């Protein structure tokens, strides 16, 4: 089931009545293809949870429309949309067993959709099998681990065979090890069921690792929609570039003159097709190549050996981000305390952004 958002906007009246309304979601237009897993990514307060609530019907949009397939669901209450929702804290009913929790949504079905008790039990059993908790059907939520509770919550959302599955920060209450495991699990379940799935997260790594598409948001405005690798390799603006990647991108204030990119005095890269101007320069940590006579001179502050790679903390007068960090292969021997270190740059790891709009400025390397 594809999901289409059309000019979707949600305003909240400001608590302080003298101030303007808060626009949580500002004129969203995008289409989620059928059967894909979509990550809504952004810092807290960017409107991603509001978007989720709009899609599932817990909030009504100020303007705009939502379509599931060809159906306009904008004015439908949540129960008539056919959505399943998984909450950050799972929201399992503490007084019910796993089985009762999973069956609960089915008991609300009315009219022709009404199921017999036996059918409900079968459906609950199937959903539990899918998330591999069919051994725990008679436990109560308090008797289960966080990961197991998460699975119950997913089973409960899946049991009524929703057209769209929504996950609100599904992994943030799990510890690091479970998080890795559970995100694979979510991926597997989504592939098996083929249900269009939208999940909200503030963790870029989580979004990158399992999404088919990432929607990056900031202040209620969509910044970029693309495949994960594309978003990383080809960010639309400085915000997206800064938000994705660990360690984060290094930002410098530089200038272009006569087709050359300058960081301070150093002409670090040939950039064609860019007019002379001051601009922001973003360099991914893996874009630094140590070179005896490299054009970029930095001071060497610290070296952190991480096994496969080496992380180098650098200093440079033109740098805006602090600390500056480069990830280099451990083949390069970097002796700490030598003072200066010189790099060449990989052109595809260097991005230029307009000083005012922070929009990406394309260039051709050599």
């Amino acid at each position, binding site marked *: 089931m594809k999901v289409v958002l059309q000019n979707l906007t949600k305003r909240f009246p400001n608590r302080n009545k003298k101030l303007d309304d808060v626009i949580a979601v500002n004129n969203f237009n995008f289409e989620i293809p059928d059967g894909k897993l979509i990550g809504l990514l952004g810092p807290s307060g960017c409107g991603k949870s509001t978007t989720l609530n709009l899609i599932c019907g817990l909030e009504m949009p100020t303007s705009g429309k939502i379509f599931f397939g060809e159906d306009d669901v904008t004015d439908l209450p949540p*129960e008539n949309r056919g959505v399943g929702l998984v909450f950050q804290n799972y929201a399992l*009913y503490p007084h019910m067993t796993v089985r009762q929790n999973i069956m609960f949504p089915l008991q609300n079905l009315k009219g022709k959709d009404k199921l017999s008790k036996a059918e409900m039990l079968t459906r609950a059993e199937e959903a539990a099998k899918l998330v591999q908790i069919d051994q725990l059907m008679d436990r109560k939520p308090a008797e289960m681990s966080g990961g197991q509770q998460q699975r119950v919550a997913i089973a409960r959302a899946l049991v009524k065979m929703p057209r769209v599955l929504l996950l609100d920060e599904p992994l943030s209450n799990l510890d690091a090890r479970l998080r890795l495991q559970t995100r694979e699990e979510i991926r597997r379940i989504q592939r098996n069921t083929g249900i269009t799935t939208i999940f909200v997260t503030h963790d870029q790594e989580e979004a990158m690792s399992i999404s088919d598409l990432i929607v990056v948001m900031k202040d209620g405005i969509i910044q970029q929609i693309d495949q994960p690798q594309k978003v990383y390799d080809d960010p639309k603006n400085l915000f997206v570039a800064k938000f994705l990647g660990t360690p984060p991108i290094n930002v410098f204030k530089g200038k272009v003159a006569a087709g050359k990119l300058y960081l301070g005095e150093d002409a670090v890269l040939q950039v064609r097709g860019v007019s002379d101007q001051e601009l922001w320069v973003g360099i991914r940590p893996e874009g630094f190549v140590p070179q005896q006579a490299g054009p970029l001179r930095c001071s060497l502050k610290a070296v952190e050996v991480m096994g496969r790679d080496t992380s180098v903390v650098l200093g440079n007068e033109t740098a805006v981000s602090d600390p500056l960090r480069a990830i280099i292969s451990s083949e390069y021997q970097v002796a700490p305390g030598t003072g200066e270190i010189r790099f060449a740059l990989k052109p595809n790891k260097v991005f230029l952004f307009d000083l005012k709009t922070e929009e990406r400025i394309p260039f051709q390397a050599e």
Partner: protein
Amino acid sequence: MTTNKAEQSPLRRGLNLKPVTYILLTLWALIVLFPFYWMLLSSLKSTAAYNAEMTPSFFTLHPTLENYTAAFRSQDEPLGRYLLNTLIFTVITTASMMVVIVLAAFAFARLKFRGRNVLFALFLSLMMIPNELVIITNFVTVKTLGLTDDAGSAIRHFTGLILPSITSIFYIYLLKENFESIPEELYKAAKVDGTSDLKYLLKVMLPISRPTIVTIIILKVIECWNSYVWPRLITTKPQFFLVSNGIQNIRESGAGRDNVPAMMAAVVVVSVPLIVLFLLFRDKIMAGVSRGGTKG
């Protein structure tokens, strides 16, 4: 918690006060228990034996239950009737109050509507109003509506008896706090599944809030069982008395003066149900009372 707190407590250090502490605590326990012993003792003495004792004895060698049969058989003071009336009053009042306060608490805790905060603040400010201030008009209201026992109709009389005690702001407040502590996500999850508000209230909120509900029920039952002033105001016919009024009537009518053991038997009968209830639900009752119950 299992560490020996007594060892670290401020009174324990230095001088060994423990024996003195125990003696004093036991003394107070005796003071508390003695009236109960005395009522039980007096109720077990035969009338003749009791009346013969100018100086009451501290025990009896010939306990008898005749006072209890007398208390229940008395035509003028139908103790069984009092108990039944009180039971009816307690059950109906508590049940209807629970319905009213659960609905109100749910509206305040989960439903969004204009003026919610203002209305709730108004509710809280009403908590300050003492019963004595409103009982005057309520008496007149109930009398005007013909809901006292003048007409001799049990239904009318019970209606008049029950109506004013069906809402309690304090319990609405207590329940609302409890409802609010249930994560809002549960409500949203239920909404997404198409659960109606009422079903959510009955199937999710009430079961989760059971401890608080039970506490409120118990506190209300105690309050109903002991209520005296309001029933006294609107009741004149003995067949409609509640236990408190009945006991008071036994005392006033002279029956009690003539037959103290029978009166004490009635006192024991009236006291036992609540004491049993207390011993069964000790922790719940004490927790409930410490959360803000006051006597009366």
